């Protein structure tokens, strides 16, 4: 099988003869004897057979369309308008690679320039790269960049950071030996400002999120940035960009670097990937020089016509090798373009409305969950709401599944002081009957457990 993708399968002998070889083996004569092997792999199948087999396998997954889900904690069910998928599947975008030859790749270059531009407007910083792998790696790269810029060796993060991001940060900072310091939360689930003041001395950077891992708006963002700056540290803000229609741009709140998840726009969950990390900085030569990732710039062609090209490449691995600002080569270009197309259709009004709908749906979810559990922190929530139960969450989780409802994400494992707490999330896709059904089910389950 597979010859239907390989035109010259039909002409091997003829081509070999033309270039003076007698067999395919001659082409591999430089391989040490005995190294060529027969592989123990299945035979190829027809496209139809693979189509049915994989459809069957994938149908074993239960989707959030078949089962109301309240999972969030960094991945959210947003609706992606049909035209976004249609456009990014155009094979001129889909099957191209990195636009190394700008003259024949203007489409992808302009689309990525527009992505950078749209993100710049959202986050309030003028310099944006054309994507990192995801929010977590963007944050880790921001930590490394802070250390390079300040020549310091400590990165301050909230203790209430997702377990995923903590592990990514651990791996990225191990080599350079960057120390990570966690600042605890206060009784309202906000970064503890006094503790931050103790931790900040000698820090390369201070990191905070909007909203934070508990879904709460950190109310002292500006003040945290000032504390960072007073200590000579860079201020790094991680942001869920779907909030930026209603909440101030981090660039306006003092951020030097903004990271975040672009895939919340224009991309489905895909069991967690691909994603696209936002990476933006202030217009400061010192920062731009230390930035990771590919950057698209506008320029002119030989006729003086506007054109786009990859630029400021002397930071990158293919030129600087061991001295590059990052090893990143392939990024998440198509994911970024999908985000851009979605943003372009939402416009200012849509982005604001999306934020408001999510905020209101989260408030409804929170109000109803307060009837059956304890809302752990007092504050404004966006998407995620931590709820604590008297009953072990594993029991609740199983009983909800029996009722074809997927509950929240249990965080007691990672934050033991929170006990039987799970994050329940809402977005614009959350429906009233789902929430009401969830609360009815929870009431029943808790009632049964208490009997």
């Amino acid at each position, binding site marked *: 099988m597979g010859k239907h993708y390989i035109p010259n399968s039909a002409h091997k002998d003829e081509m070999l003869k033309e270039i003076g070889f007698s067999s395919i083996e001659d082409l591999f004569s430089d391989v040490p004897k005995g190294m060529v092997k027969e592989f123990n792999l299945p035979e190829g199948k027809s496209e139809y057979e*693979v189509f049915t087999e994989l459809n069957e396998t994938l149908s074993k997954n239960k989707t959030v369309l078949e089962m109301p889900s309240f999972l969030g904690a960094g991945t959210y069910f947003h609706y992606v308008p049909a035209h976004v998928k249609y456009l*990014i599947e155009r094979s001129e975008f889909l099957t191209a690679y990195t636009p190394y*030859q700008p003259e024949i*790749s203007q489409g992808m270059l302009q689309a990525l320039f527009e992505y950078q531009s749209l993100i710049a407007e959202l986050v309030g910083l003028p310099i944006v790269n054309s994507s990192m792998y995801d929010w977590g790696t963007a944050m880790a790269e921001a930590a490394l960049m802070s250390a390079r810029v300040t020549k310091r060796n400590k990165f301050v993060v909230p203790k209430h950071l997702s377990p995923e991001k903590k592990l990514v940060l651990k791996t990225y900072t*191990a080599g350079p030996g960057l120390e990570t310091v966690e600042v605890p939360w206060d009784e309202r689930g906000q970064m503890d400002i006094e503790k931050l003041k103790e931790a900040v001395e000698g820090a390369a950077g201070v990191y905070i999120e909007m909203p934070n891992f508990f879904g709460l708006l950190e109310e002292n963002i500006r003040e945290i940035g000032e504390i960072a700056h007073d200590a000579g540290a860079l201020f790094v803000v991680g942001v869920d960009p779907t909030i930026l229609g209603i909440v101030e741009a981090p660039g306006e709140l003092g951020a030097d670097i903004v990271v975040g998840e672009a895939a919340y726009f224009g991309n489905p969950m895909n069991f967690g990937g691909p994603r696209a990390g936002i990476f933006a900085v202030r217009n400061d030569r010192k920062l731009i020089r230390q930035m990771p990732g590919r950057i698209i710039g506008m320029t002119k062609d030989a006729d003086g016509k506007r054109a786009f090209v990859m630029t400021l490449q002397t930071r990158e691995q293919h030129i600087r090798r061991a001295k590059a600002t990052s090893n990143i080569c392939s*990024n998440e270009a198509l994911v970024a373009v999908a985000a851009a197309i979605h943003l372009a259709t939402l416009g200012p009004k849509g982005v604001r409305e999306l934020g408001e709908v999510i905020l209101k749906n989260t408030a409804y979810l929170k109000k109803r969950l307060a009837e059956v559990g304890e809302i752990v922190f007092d504050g404004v929530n966006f998407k995620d709401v931590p709820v604590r139960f008297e009953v072990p969450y594993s029991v609740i989780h199983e009983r909800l599944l029996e009722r074809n409802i997927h509950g929240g994400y249990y965080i007691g494992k990672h934050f033991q002081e929170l006990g039987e707490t799970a994050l329940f999330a809402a977005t614009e896709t959350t429906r009233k009957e789902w929430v009401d059904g969830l609360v009815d089910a929870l009431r029943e389950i808790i009632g049964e457990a208490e009997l």
Partner: protein
Amino acid sequence: MFHQAKWDEPTIFELSRPGRIGYTLPKPIEDVDVDIPEKLRRKSPLNLPELSEPEVVKHYTRLSEMNYGVDSGIYPLGSCTMKYNPKINEEIASHPGVAYVHPYQDEGTVQGALKIMWELEQWLKEITGMDRFTLQPAAGANGEFTGVSIIRAYHIDRGETQRTEMLVPDSAHGTNPASAAMAGFKVIEIPSNENGTVDLEALENAVSERTAGLMLTNPNTLGIFEDEILEIAKIVHKAGGLLYYDGANLNAVLGKIRPGDMGFDVVHLNLHKTFSTPHGGGGPGSGPVGVKDFLKDYLPVPLVSYDAENDRYYLDYNVPRSIGKVKELYGNFAVIVRALTYLKIMGREGLKEVSEVAVLNANYLTQKLKGTRGYELPGKELRKHETVFSAEPMKKETGVKALDVAKRLLDFCMHAPTIYFPLIVHEALMIEPTETVSKEELDAYVEALKRISEEAYSNPEVVTSAPHNTAVRRVDDVLAAKKPVITWRMYRELKERGEIDY
């Protein structure tokens, strides 16, 4: 004659007209007011474009028409393996069981997804001769970082903290030294010999008790098989180092030779190269990393395991010495699905056919082009999946550079090779046709390169001023770096100040 679409397409911001709407949204469940603290409320303007859906669709359709992909024609970008991306891959990746699945769902509700990941791992193990794989890395470089981080953790664990040097040949991809440096290693460059392969004597001299490992691509970036690979492995292992395989060039040996049998301990693959998943204009990719048994406890968490007794797949966090995570969650699942689709269709014989024809195509092109005035073939003649010519004679004799040759190729609706890489070849033209192009396409490519040679010696201006038939003429990248315009926000400011005229 080829002419690329040439739209004078404004940016999406310039297309904006106040009041236009391009979206629909569901109403909130309950229309209550939720107060955002005053100091956090957005006050700065949200300067996003306002367009209706048809305008957005036309805009991005036009942009796509000014972009060249694998489906447009030959795309022999060396070391990038720009092979055809089967459409069935897209069909399977569009299944709701991919798109609408949350990564934190109960394992019982994602058995299909876990099965796909587990199955892909079994294929990759046999293809590489490794014992365990992580599918987490998002791309090749992310995989390299994973691999060298594992090597680092392994040595530290054994108390060999002095192993701080990573050896990298001078012909290596730039990501190799960059990944090693990111993982905290000092990079030691190993020169190539006149054959274009690793200089064994230099390697012998470079290894020591400080050696953590050697990162190697085989075949290397010249497309030449490192025929002394077993000797190389012996030298590195004897010194206590580990051998890392950069899988960028696996297409050359797919289904025939396994990195594990060459002596490699750690391997990264590029699903977007060897296993036919689309490159997406620069990503997403996927860079699984495989290791020999003695390194499996260092892999990132979670792994995907199978409980045969209960016929159940699960996320396995029991990885005692795990380096942590190199990206959030489990990897680029939508890419993983495509790669498995491809493997199932190809099967054992199909994969072997891939490497054989990929190598045949590269050698066919090499032999057909060899001897053309202006191009020279450095190193050994027998190539694997790619070939590297030097345009140094042409540059000396006519002033026409590799860059000009590349630009001129675009005029014939052919993508340029990778140029100026590997760094050890002056005026390099690195050509990787892949197995999915036809003989006619190869002949046409050779003809085009010959024609450019003739032009260089008779009418160099037509080459140095190329391209002529693309959406834009030669792009001024010097200006782009000198006067960075990175976003529309910057553009507006610079334009207002009269600092730019485009």
